[in-house]
Protein backbone atom coordinates (compact mmCIF):
# COMPACT_ATOMS: atom_id res chain seq x y z
CA UNK A 1 0.00 0.00 0.00
CA UNK A 2 1.16 3.54 -0.65
CA UNK A 3 2.66 5.38 2.29
CA UNK A 4 3.69 2.20 4.03
CA UNK A 5 7.34 1.95 5.02
CA UNK A 6 8.85 -1.49 5.43
CA UNK A 7 12.41 -2.14 6.55
CA UNK A 8 14.24 -5.41 6.97
CA UNK A 9 17.52 -6.79 8.17
CA UNK A 10 19.45 -9.64 9.67
CA UNK A 11 21.91 -10.21 12.49
CA UNK A 12 23.64 -12.99 14.35
CA UNK A 13 22.68 -13.18 17.99
CA UNK A 14 25.34 -12.57 20.60
CA UNK A 15 22.83 -13.46 23.31
CA UNK A 16 22.47 -9.86 24.39
CA UNK A 17 19.76 -7.26 23.97
CA UNK A 18 19.72 -6.05 20.38
CA UNK A 19 18.94 -2.43 19.43
CA UNK A 20 17.67 -1.97 15.89
CA UNK A 21 17.52 1.59 14.64
CA UNK A 22 14.42 2.11 12.51
CA UNK A 23 14.75 5.37 10.71
CA UNK A 24 11.12 5.91 9.81
CA UNK A 25 9.67 4.71 13.11
CA UNK A 26 7.89 1.40 13.66
CA UNK A 27 4.32 0.27 14.25
CA UNK A 28 4.76 -3.47 13.83
CA UNK A 29 7.69 -5.84 13.79
CA UNK A 30 8.15 -9.46 12.90
CA UNK A 31 11.27 -11.40 13.86
CA UNK A 32 12.17 -14.83 12.50
CA UNK A 33 14.83 -16.89 14.21
CA UNK A 34 16.06 -18.76 11.14
CA UNK A 35 18.28 -21.12 13.10
CA UNK A 36 15.56 -22.30 15.47
CA UNK A 37 12.88 -22.36 12.75
CA UNK A 38 14.70 -25.05 10.82
CA UNK A 39 15.87 -26.86 13.95
CA UNK A 40 13.61 -28.90 16.23
CA UNK A 41 14.74 -27.87 19.69
CA UNK A 42 11.99 -28.08 22.29
CA UNK A 43 10.99 -24.76 23.86
CA UNK A 44 12.95 -22.63 21.44
CA UNK A 45 11.26 -19.66 19.78
CA UNK A 46 11.04 -19.37 15.99
CA UNK A 47 8.91 -16.36 15.22
CA UNK A 48 8.11 -13.23 17.24
CA UNK A 49 5.60 -10.47 16.64
CA UNK A 50 5.01 -7.02 18.06
CA UNK A 51 2.49 -4.33 17.18
CA UNK A 52 1.96 -0.78 18.33
CA UNK A 53 -0.13 -0.78 21.49
CA UNK A 54 1.54 -3.76 23.16
CA UNK A 55 3.14 -3.01 26.51
CA UNK A 56 6.87 -2.48 26.75
CA UNK A 57 8.79 -5.73 26.95
CA UNK A 58 6.00 -7.90 25.51
CA UNK A 59 5.29 -9.67 22.23
CA UNK A 60 4.02 -12.94 20.80
CA UNK A 61 6.27 -15.95 20.37
CA UNK A 62 5.74 -19.02 18.16
CA UNK A 63 7.90 -21.86 19.44
CA UNK A 64 8.49 -25.59 19.23
CA UNK A 65 6.70 -27.09 22.27
CA UNK A 66 8.44 -30.41 21.65
CA UNK A 67 11.54 -31.61 19.82
CA UNK A 68 9.80 -31.71 16.47
CA UNK A 69 8.39 -29.31 13.88
CA UNK A 70 5.13 -28.49 15.67
CA UNK A 71 4.46 -24.93 16.72
CA UNK A 72 2.69 -23.33 19.65
CA UNK A 73 2.06 -19.70 20.43
CA UNK A 74 2.26 -17.71 23.67
CA UNK A 75 2.96 -14.25 24.97
CA UNK A 76 6.60 -13.65 25.78
CA UNK A 77 7.55 -13.33 29.41
CA UNK A 78 7.45 -9.76 30.72
CA UNK A 79 10.64 -8.00 29.70
CA UNK A 80 11.53 -10.73 27.22
CA UNK A 81 9.85 -9.34 24.12
CA UNK A 82 10.05 -5.97 22.39
CA UNK A 83 10.49 -2.43 23.74
CA UNK A 84 10.06 0.65 21.58
CA UNK A 85 13.01 3.01 22.08
CA UNK A 86 13.23 6.75 21.50
CA UNK A 87 16.69 7.92 22.54
CA UNK A 88 15.62 11.56 22.47
CA UNK A 89 13.42 10.89 25.50
CA UNK A 90 15.67 12.30 28.22
CA UNK A 91 13.22 12.00 31.08
CA UNK A 92 15.17 10.80 34.13
CA UNK A 93 14.04 7.83 36.18
CA UNK A 94 12.02 8.16 39.36
CA UNK A 95 13.60 9.36 42.60
CA UNK A 96 15.00 6.49 44.69
CA UNK A 97 16.12 6.79 48.27
CA UNK A 98 19.79 6.88 49.21
CA UNK A 99 20.36 5.92 52.83
CA UNK A 100 24.09 6.68 53.09
CA UNK A 101 27.06 7.86 51.08
CA UNK A 102 30.76 7.72 51.89
CA UNK A 103 33.16 10.64 52.14
CA UNK A 104 35.80 9.30 49.76
CA UNK A 105 36.99 10.20 46.28
CA UNK A 106 34.71 7.62 44.66
CA UNK A 107 31.71 7.63 46.99
CA UNK A 108 29.58 4.55 47.62
CA UNK A 109 25.83 5.20 47.80
CA UNK A 110 23.68 2.83 49.85
CA UNK A 111 20.23 2.17 48.44
CA UNK A 112 17.63 -0.53 48.68
CA UNK A 113 16.68 -0.19 45.02
CA UNK A 114 19.17 -0.82 42.22
CA UNK A 115 16.64 -2.04 39.67
CA UNK A 116 17.83 -1.26 36.16
CA UNK A 117 21.21 -0.07 37.42
CA UNK A 118 24.32 -1.59 35.85
CA UNK A 119 28.00 -0.81 35.50
CA UNK A 120 28.15 2.11 33.09
CA UNK A 121 24.73 3.53 34.04
CA UNK A 122 24.54 7.28 34.64
CA UNK A 123 23.02 8.50 37.90
CA UNK A 124 22.24 11.91 39.35
CA UNK A 125 22.03 12.46 43.13
CA UNK A 126 19.85 15.12 44.72
CA UNK A 127 18.92 16.50 48.14
CA UNK A 128 21.75 14.64 49.86
CA UNK A 129 22.20 15.49 53.52
CA UNK A 130 24.57 14.33 56.21
CA UNK A 131 24.59 14.28 59.98
CA UNK A 132 22.27 16.80 61.62
CA UNK A 133 20.80 17.64 58.23
CA UNK A 134 23.99 19.23 56.91
CA UNK A 135 23.90 19.54 53.13
CA UNK A 136 26.14 17.40 50.96
CA UNK A 137 24.84 19.40 48.03
CA UNK A 138 28.23 19.62 46.34
CA UNK A 139 27.66 16.03 45.16
CA UNK A 140 24.19 16.82 43.86
CA UNK A 141 23.15 17.67 40.33
CA UNK A 142 26.17 16.06 38.65
CA UNK A 143 25.89 13.15 36.25
CA UNK A 144 28.06 10.34 37.58
CA UNK A 145 28.87 7.03 35.95
CA UNK A 146 28.39 3.87 37.99
CA UNK A 147 31.43 1.62 38.41
CA UNK A 148 30.03 -1.17 40.59
CA UNK A 149 26.62 -2.31 41.75
CA UNK A 150 25.67 -4.58 44.63
CA UNK A 151 22.10 -5.68 44.04
CA UNK A 152 19.68 -3.64 46.14
CA UNK A 153 22.51 -2.66 48.48
CA UNK A 154 24.75 0.03 46.99
CA UNK A 155 26.50 1.42 43.93
CA UNK A 156 29.91 3.07 43.52
CA UNK A 157 31.03 5.92 41.30
CA UNK A 158 33.19 4.75 38.43
CA UNK A 159 35.74 7.55 38.45
CA UNK A 160 37.61 9.16 41.33
CA UNK A 161 37.07 12.80 42.12
CA UNK A 162 40.12 14.90 43.01
CA UNK A 163 39.14 14.92 46.66
CA UNK A 164 36.37 13.60 48.88
CA UNK A 165 33.12 15.60 48.99
CA UNK A 166 33.67 16.62 52.59
CA UNK A 167 30.87 14.85 54.42
CA UNK A 168 29.25 11.45 54.72
CA UNK A 169 25.69 11.43 53.46
CA UNK A 170 22.86 9.93 55.49
CA UNK A 171 19.79 10.59 53.36
CA UNK A 172 18.98 11.68 49.85
CA UNK A 173 17.84 10.47 46.46
CA UNK A 174 19.21 9.36 43.14
CA UNK A 175 17.80 8.96 39.64
CA UNK A 176 18.94 6.93 36.67
CA UNK A 177 19.64 9.25 33.73
CA UNK A 178 18.67 7.38 30.58
CA UNK A 179 20.55 9.10 27.79
CA UNK A 180 23.26 11.53 26.84
CA UNK A 181 22.46 14.81 25.15
CA UNK A 182 21.64 13.72 21.61
CA UNK A 183 24.19 15.92 19.87
CA UNK A 184 27.87 14.92 19.72
CA UNK A 185 30.45 16.09 20.80
CA UNK A 186 29.08 16.89 24.26
CA UNK A 187 30.17 19.00 27.17
CA UNK A 188 31.28 17.00 30.21
CA UNK A 189 31.63 17.58 33.93
CA UNK A 190 35.22 17.56 35.20
CA UNK A 191 35.96 15.91 38.55
CA UNK A 192 39.75 16.10 38.58
CA UNK A 193 42.68 17.65 36.72
CA UNK A 194 46.20 16.53 37.48
CA UNK A 195 49.22 18.80 37.94
CA UNK A 196 51.51 17.46 35.23
CA UNK A 197 53.49 18.36 32.14
CA UNK A 198 50.52 17.03 30.21
CA UNK A 199 47.52 17.69 32.40
CA UNK A 200 45.05 14.81 32.56
CA UNK A 201 41.39 15.75 32.85
CA UNK A 202 39.04 13.28 34.52
CA UNK A 203 35.38 13.42 33.55
CA UNK A 204 32.43 12.22 35.62
CA UNK A 205 31.20 9.97 32.79
CA UNK A 206 32.77 8.50 29.67
CA UNK A 207 33.55 11.52 27.50
CA UNK A 208 33.60 10.16 23.95
CA UNK A 209 36.31 12.53 22.69
CA UNK A 210 39.09 11.46 20.36
CA UNK A 211 42.74 12.43 19.93
CA UNK A 212 43.08 15.73 18.09
CA UNK A 213 39.86 17.29 19.30
CA UNK A 214 40.15 20.72 20.90
CA UNK A 215 38.36 21.51 24.11
CA UNK A 216 37.94 24.52 26.34
CA UNK A 217 38.31 23.93 30.06
CA UNK A 218 36.11 25.87 32.47
CA UNK A 219 37.17 25.75 36.12
CA UNK A 220 35.31 27.99 38.61
CA UNK A 221 37.27 29.27 41.60
CA UNK A 222 35.51 26.85 43.96
CA UNK A 223 37.51 24.02 42.39
CA UNK A 224 40.99 25.42 42.87
CA UNK A 225 42.82 25.22 39.57
CA UNK A 226 41.76 28.65 38.30
CA UNK A 227 44.78 28.86 35.99
CA UNK A 228 43.04 26.28 33.82
CA UNK A 229 39.86 28.33 33.48
CA UNK A 230 39.17 29.27 29.88
CA UNK A 231 42.22 27.43 28.55
CA UNK A 232 42.01 25.88 25.10
CA UNK A 233 43.54 22.41 25.03
CA UNK A 234 44.27 19.71 22.47
CA UNK A 235 43.42 16.11 23.29
CA UNK A 236 46.62 14.07 22.89
CA UNK A 237 45.49 10.76 24.40
CA UNK A 238 42.31 9.33 25.87
CA UNK A 239 40.89 6.60 28.01
CA UNK A 240 37.16 6.23 28.52
CA UNK A 241 37.13 8.63 31.47
CA UNK A 242 40.32 10.67 31.03
CA UNK A 243 41.75 13.13 28.53
CA UNK A 244 45.46 13.84 28.29
CA UNK A 245 46.10 17.36 27.05
CA UNK A 246 48.95 19.51 25.77
CA UNK A 247 48.63 21.83 28.80
CA UNK A 248 51.47 21.96 31.33
CA UNK A 249 49.73 22.34 34.70
CA UNK A 250 52.67 21.58 36.97
CA UNK A 251 52.69 25.07 38.45
CA UNK A 252 48.94 25.39 38.71
CA UNK A 253 46.91 25.41 41.92
CA UNK A 254 45.75 21.89 42.81
CA UNK A 255 42.28 20.91 41.62
CA UNK A 256 39.98 20.13 44.55
CA UNK A 257 36.36 19.01 44.57
CA UNK A 258 34.22 21.82 45.96
CA UNK A 259 32.97 21.44 49.52
CA UNK A 260 29.31 21.89 50.46
CA UNK A 261 30.10 25.18 52.20
CA UNK A 262 30.80 26.95 48.91
CA UNK A 263 27.44 26.18 47.33
CA UNK A 264 26.00 27.42 45.02
CA UNK A 265 28.63 27.12 42.30
CA UNK A 266 29.10 26.33 38.63
CA UNK A 267 30.53 22.90 37.97
CA UNK A 268 33.82 22.66 36.06
CA UNK A 269 33.29 21.50 32.51
CA UNK A 270 34.97 20.88 29.22
CA UNK A 271 33.28 21.86 25.99
CA UNK A 272 34.21 20.78 22.46
CA UNK A 273 35.43 23.60 20.23
CA UNK A 274 36.98 21.98 17.16
CA UNK A 275 39.91 19.86 16.06
CA UNK A 276 43.65 20.31 15.68
CA UNK A 277 44.39 19.00 12.21
CA UNK A 278 48.05 18.19 12.86
CA UNK A 279 47.36 16.15 15.97
CA UNK A 280 44.45 14.37 14.32
CA UNK A 281 46.49 13.42 11.26
CA UNK A 282 49.45 12.31 13.37
CA UNK A 283 47.11 10.26 15.52
CA UNK A 284 45.42 8.74 12.46
CA UNK A 285 42.09 10.20 13.54
CA UNK A 286 39.37 11.39 11.21
CA UNK A 287 39.88 15.14 10.83
CA UNK A 288 36.11 15.57 10.98
CA UNK A 289 35.87 13.73 14.30
CA UNK A 290 34.65 16.91 15.96
CA UNK A 291 31.69 17.30 13.61
CA UNK A 292 28.46 18.11 15.38
CA UNK A 293 25.91 15.41 14.66
CA UNK A 294 22.64 14.12 15.96
CA UNK A 295 22.96 10.72 17.62
CA UNK A 296 19.27 10.45 18.46
CA UNK A 297 17.36 7.50 17.08
CA UNK A 298 14.11 5.65 17.31
CA UNK A 299 13.96 1.93 17.04
CA UNK A 300 13.32 -1.33 18.78
CA UNK A 301 15.04 -3.18 21.57
CA UNK A 302 14.82 -6.93 21.12
CA UNK A 303 15.20 -8.42 24.56
CA UNK A 304 17.41 -11.36 25.30
CA UNK A 305 15.12 -12.56 28.07
CA UNK A 306 15.88 -13.83 31.52
CA UNK A 307 19.61 -13.93 31.94
CA UNK A 308 19.30 -16.16 35.02
CA UNK A 309 17.67 -18.89 32.93
CA UNK A 310 20.01 -21.57 31.54
CA UNK A 311 17.96 -21.46 28.31
CA UNK A 312 18.72 -17.79 28.11
CA UNK A 313 17.37 -16.25 24.97
CA UNK A 314 15.52 -19.35 23.82
CA UNK A 315 12.11 -17.65 23.97
CA UNK A 316 13.03 -14.05 23.27
CA UNK A 317 13.55 -12.24 19.96
CA UNK A 318 17.23 -11.39 20.47
CA UNK A 319 17.82 -15.13 20.16
CA UNK A 320 20.26 -17.69 21.43
CA UNK A 321 24.01 -17.45 20.90
CA UNK A 322 24.90 -17.52 17.17
CA UNK A 323 21.28 -17.85 16.02
CA UNK A 324 20.64 -16.19 12.66
CA UNK A 325 17.85 -13.65 13.14
CA UNK A 326 15.91 -12.01 10.32
CA UNK A 327 13.48 -9.18 10.91
CA UNK A 328 10.95 -6.98 9.16
CA UNK A 329 9.48 -3.80 10.59
CA UNK A 330 6.88 -1.51 9.19
CA UNK A 331 5.01 1.70 9.58
CA UNK A 332 1.45 1.42 8.34
CA UNK A 333 -0.54 3.96 6.42
CA UNK A 334 -3.33 3.71 8.96
CA UNK A 335 -3.56 2.25 12.42
CA UNK A 336 -7.23 2.13 13.26
CA UNK A 337 -8.11 1.55 16.90
CA UNK A 338 -11.65 0.16 17.25
Amino acid sequence: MDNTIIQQGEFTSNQADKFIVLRGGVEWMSVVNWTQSVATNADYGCHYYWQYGMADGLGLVYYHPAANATLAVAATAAGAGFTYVDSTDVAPGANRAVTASTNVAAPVFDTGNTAGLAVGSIVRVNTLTGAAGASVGSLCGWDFQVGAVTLNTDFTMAYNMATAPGLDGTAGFYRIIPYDPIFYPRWRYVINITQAANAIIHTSVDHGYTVGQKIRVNVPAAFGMVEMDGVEAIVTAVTAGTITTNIDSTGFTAFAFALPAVLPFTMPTIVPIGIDMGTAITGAVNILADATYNTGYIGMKLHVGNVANPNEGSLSPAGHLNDIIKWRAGKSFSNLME
Partner: protein
Amino acid sequence: MRLGVQLRMTEDELVRNMLAGTAAMINCVAGVNGDNPTELTAADISVLIQTLLGNNAKTVAQGMEGADKFGTAPVRNAYWALCDSDLTADLNDIDGFEHTSQYPTQKNILPSEWGSVQNLRFLVSSEGSVSPAASAAGNDVYNVFCVGMEAYTMVDQDGMSAHFIYRPPIYDGPLALNCSVGWKMGFAARITNDLWVLNMRTTRMN
Protein backbone atom coordinates in the same frame (compact mmCIF):
# COMPACT_ATOMS: atom_id res chain seq x y z
CA MET B 1 -0.64 20.41 15.06
CA ARG B 2 -0.30 22.14 11.72
CA LEU B 3 2.36 20.36 9.73
CA GLY B 4 4.18 23.51 8.61
CA VAL B 5 4.44 24.71 12.20
CA GLN B 6 5.69 21.30 13.23
CA LEU B 7 8.42 21.51 10.59
CA ARG B 8 9.70 24.83 11.89
CA MET B 9 9.40 23.75 15.52
CA THR B 10 11.44 20.66 14.72
CA GLU B 11 14.20 22.88 13.37
CA ASP B 12 14.05 24.94 16.57
CA GLU B 13 14.16 21.83 18.72
CA LEU B 14 17.20 20.51 16.89
CA VAL B 15 19.08 23.78 17.40
CA ARG B 16 17.96 23.80 21.03
CA ASN B 17 19.25 20.28 21.57
CA MET B 18 22.52 21.05 19.81
CA LEU B 19 23.10 24.02 22.11
CA ALA B 20 22.10 21.99 25.17
CA GLY B 21 24.61 19.31 24.31
CA THR B 22 27.59 21.37 23.30
CA ALA B 23 27.48 24.94 24.68
CA ALA B 24 29.52 26.09 27.69
CA MET B 25 27.53 26.70 30.85
CA ILE B 26 27.40 29.03 33.79
CA ASN B 27 25.17 28.42 36.80
CA CYS B 28 23.09 31.16 38.37
CA VAL B 29 24.50 31.52 41.89
CA ALA B 30 23.25 34.88 43.19
CA GLY B 31 19.69 33.83 43.97
CA VAL B 32 18.17 32.90 47.29
CA ASN B 33 16.08 29.79 46.57
CA GLY B 34 18.72 27.53 48.15
CA ASP B 35 19.20 25.38 45.08
CA ASN B 36 22.18 24.96 42.77
CA PRO B 37 21.77 26.63 40.34
CA THR B 38 19.68 29.31 41.97
CA GLU B 39 16.95 31.39 40.36
CA LEU B 40 17.94 34.01 37.80
CA THR B 41 19.04 37.39 39.15
CA ALA B 42 20.38 40.67 37.82
CA ALA B 43 23.77 39.85 39.34
CA ASP B 44 23.99 36.63 37.34
CA ILE B 45 23.06 38.49 34.18
CA SER B 46 25.80 41.06 34.87
CA VAL B 47 28.40 38.30 35.15
CA LEU B 48 27.19 36.66 31.99
CA ILE B 49 27.22 39.87 29.95
CA GLN B 50 30.66 40.70 31.27
CA THR B 51 31.86 37.28 30.15
CA LEU B 52 30.41 37.65 26.65
CA LEU B 53 31.86 41.13 26.33
CA GLY B 54 35.23 39.84 27.51
CA ASN B 55 35.03 37.19 24.81
CA ASN B 56 34.41 39.90 22.18
CA ALA B 57 30.95 38.62 21.35
CA LYS B 58 29.02 41.19 19.35
CA THR B 59 25.50 42.06 20.39
CA VAL B 60 22.72 41.02 18.04
CA ALA B 61 19.99 43.56 18.66
CA GLN B 62 20.47 47.28 18.29
CA GLY B 63 19.57 49.61 21.13
CA MET B 64 16.37 51.65 21.17
CA GLU B 65 16.62 55.35 21.84
CA GLY B 66 14.51 56.74 24.67
CA ALA B 67 11.23 58.43 23.80
CA ASP B 68 9.02 60.95 25.55
CA LYS B 69 6.32 58.42 26.44
CA PHE B 70 5.00 57.53 29.90
CA GLY B 71 6.31 54.32 31.40
CA THR B 72 8.94 53.64 28.77
CA ALA B 73 12.71 53.49 28.92
CA PRO B 74 15.52 53.07 26.42
CA VAL B 75 16.66 49.58 25.55
CA ARG B 76 20.34 48.72 25.36
CA ASN B 77 21.98 46.93 22.47
CA ALA B 78 21.67 43.31 23.46
CA TYR B 79 22.47 39.64 23.15
CA TRP B 80 19.56 37.24 22.66
CA ALA B 81 18.62 35.03 25.58
CA LEU B 82 16.59 32.00 24.43
CA CYS B 83 14.59 30.38 27.20
CA ASP B 84 11.49 28.46 28.21
CA SER B 85 8.24 30.31 28.78
CA ASP B 86 8.08 28.83 32.31
CA LEU B 87 10.64 31.46 33.30
CA THR B 88 8.47 34.47 32.52
CA ALA B 89 7.30 34.92 36.12
CA ASP B 90 10.90 34.90 37.34
CA LEU B 91 11.90 37.32 34.60
CA ASN B 92 9.21 39.73 35.75
CA ASP B 93 10.81 39.80 39.20
CA ILE B 94 14.39 40.56 38.14
CA ASP B 95 15.68 43.99 39.13
CA GLY B 96 15.69 46.22 36.08
CA PHE B 97 13.44 43.99 33.98
CA GLU B 98 11.72 45.93 31.21
CA HIS B 99 8.75 44.31 29.49
CA THR B 100 8.39 44.82 25.75
CA SER B 101 5.34 46.99 26.40
CA GLN B 102 7.71 49.45 28.08
CA TYR B 103 10.05 49.71 25.12
CA PRO B 104 10.12 53.20 23.60
CA THR B 105 8.92 51.77 20.30
CA GLN B 106 6.99 48.65 19.36
CA LYS B 107 8.96 48.24 16.17
CA ASN B 108 11.69 45.64 15.90
CA ILE B 109 10.21 43.49 18.65
CA LEU B 110 10.03 39.80 17.89
CA PRO B 111 6.70 38.02 18.56
CA SER B 112 8.37 35.74 21.09
CA GLU B 113 10.17 38.54 22.93
CA TRP B 114 9.28 38.95 26.61
CA GLY B 115 11.51 41.81 27.69
CA SER B 116 15.04 42.87 28.52
CA VAL B 117 17.43 43.10 31.44
CA GLN B 118 20.64 45.04 30.99
CA ASN B 119 22.11 43.85 27.68
CA LEU B 120 19.98 40.73 27.35
CA ARG B 121 16.69 40.53 25.45
CA PHE B 122 14.70 37.42 26.32
CA LEU B 123 12.90 35.33 23.71
CA VAL B 124 10.59 32.73 25.24
CA SER B 125 9.11 29.52 23.88
CA SER B 126 7.12 26.66 25.32
CA GLU B 127 9.75 24.43 23.69
CA GLY B 128 12.67 26.01 25.55
CA SER B 129 15.45 23.81 26.87
CA VAL B 130 14.87 22.17 30.24
CA SER B 131 17.09 19.60 31.93
CA PRO B 132 14.63 17.65 34.08
CA ALA B 133 15.52 17.04 37.74
CA ALA B 134 19.06 18.33 37.22
CA SER B 135 19.51 20.73 40.14
CA ALA B 136 21.07 19.92 43.51
CA ALA B 137 17.58 19.78 44.99
CA GLY B 138 16.26 17.67 42.15
CA ASN B 139 14.36 20.46 40.44
CA ASP B 140 14.24 21.14 36.73
CA VAL B 141 17.10 23.26 35.41
CA TYR B 142 16.25 25.75 32.69
CA ASN B 143 18.89 26.37 30.05
CA VAL B 144 18.96 30.01 28.93
CA PHE B 145 21.10 30.21 25.82
CA CYS B 146 22.66 33.67 25.62
CA VAL B 147 24.02 34.20 22.14
CA GLY B 148 26.06 36.84 20.42
CA MET B 149 26.16 37.53 16.72
CA GLU B 150 27.13 34.51 14.61
CA ALA B 151 27.64 32.33 17.68
CA TYR B 152 26.04 29.37 15.93
CA THR B 153 24.83 28.56 12.49
CA MET B 154 22.48 26.32 10.60
CA VAL B 155 23.96 24.82 7.48
CA ASP B 156 21.83 24.89 4.34
CA GLN B 157 22.60 21.96 2.10
CA ASP B 158 21.84 22.08 -1.61
CA GLY B 159 18.55 20.37 -2.32
CA MET B 160 18.16 19.31 1.29
CA SER B 161 16.58 22.30 2.98
CA ALA B 162 13.03 21.86 4.18
CA HIS B 163 10.66 20.40 1.60
CA PHE B 164 6.92 20.51 2.22
CA ILE B 165 5.36 18.00 -0.13
CA TYR B 166 1.72 17.60 -1.10
CA ARG B 167 0.64 14.75 -3.33
CA PRO B 168 -2.94 14.87 -4.65
CA PRO B 169 -5.00 11.64 -4.71
CA ILE B 170 -4.18 10.94 -8.34
CA TYR B 171 -0.73 9.74 -7.19
CA ASP B 172 -2.26 7.22 -4.77
CA GLY B 173 -3.55 4.58 -7.14
CA PRO B 174 -6.11 3.79 -9.81
CA LEU B 175 -8.99 4.95 -7.63
CA ALA B 176 -7.31 8.16 -6.39
CA LEU B 177 -8.53 7.62 -2.85
CA ASN B 178 -5.88 9.22 -0.67
CA CYS B 179 -3.86 12.37 -0.79
CA SER B 180 -0.76 12.86 1.31
CA VAL B 181 1.20 15.71 2.81
CA GLY B 182 4.54 15.61 4.56
CA TRP B 183 7.88 17.26 4.99
CA LYS B 184 11.51 16.27 4.93
CA MET B 185 14.81 18.03 5.46
CA GLY B 186 18.49 17.50 5.92
CA PHE B 187 19.70 19.54 8.83
CA ALA B 188 22.97 20.52 10.43
CA ALA B 189 23.66 23.08 13.15
CA ARG B 190 26.96 24.01 14.72
CA ILE B 191 28.42 26.42 17.26
CA THR B 192 30.82 28.56 15.25
CA ASN B 193 32.56 30.19 18.21
CA ASP B 194 32.14 28.65 21.66
CA LEU B 195 33.07 31.93 23.34
CA TRP B 196 30.04 33.73 21.95
CA VAL B 197 27.35 31.50 23.40
CA LEU B 198 26.79 30.67 27.05
CA ASN B 199 24.17 28.47 28.65
CA MET B 200 22.98 30.30 31.77
CA ARG B 201 21.48 27.49 33.90
CA THR B 202 18.79 28.45 36.35
CA THR B 203 16.05 27.03 38.55
CA ARG B 204 12.75 28.72 39.23
CA MET B 205 11.58 30.84 42.13
CA ASN B 206 7.98 31.21 40.93
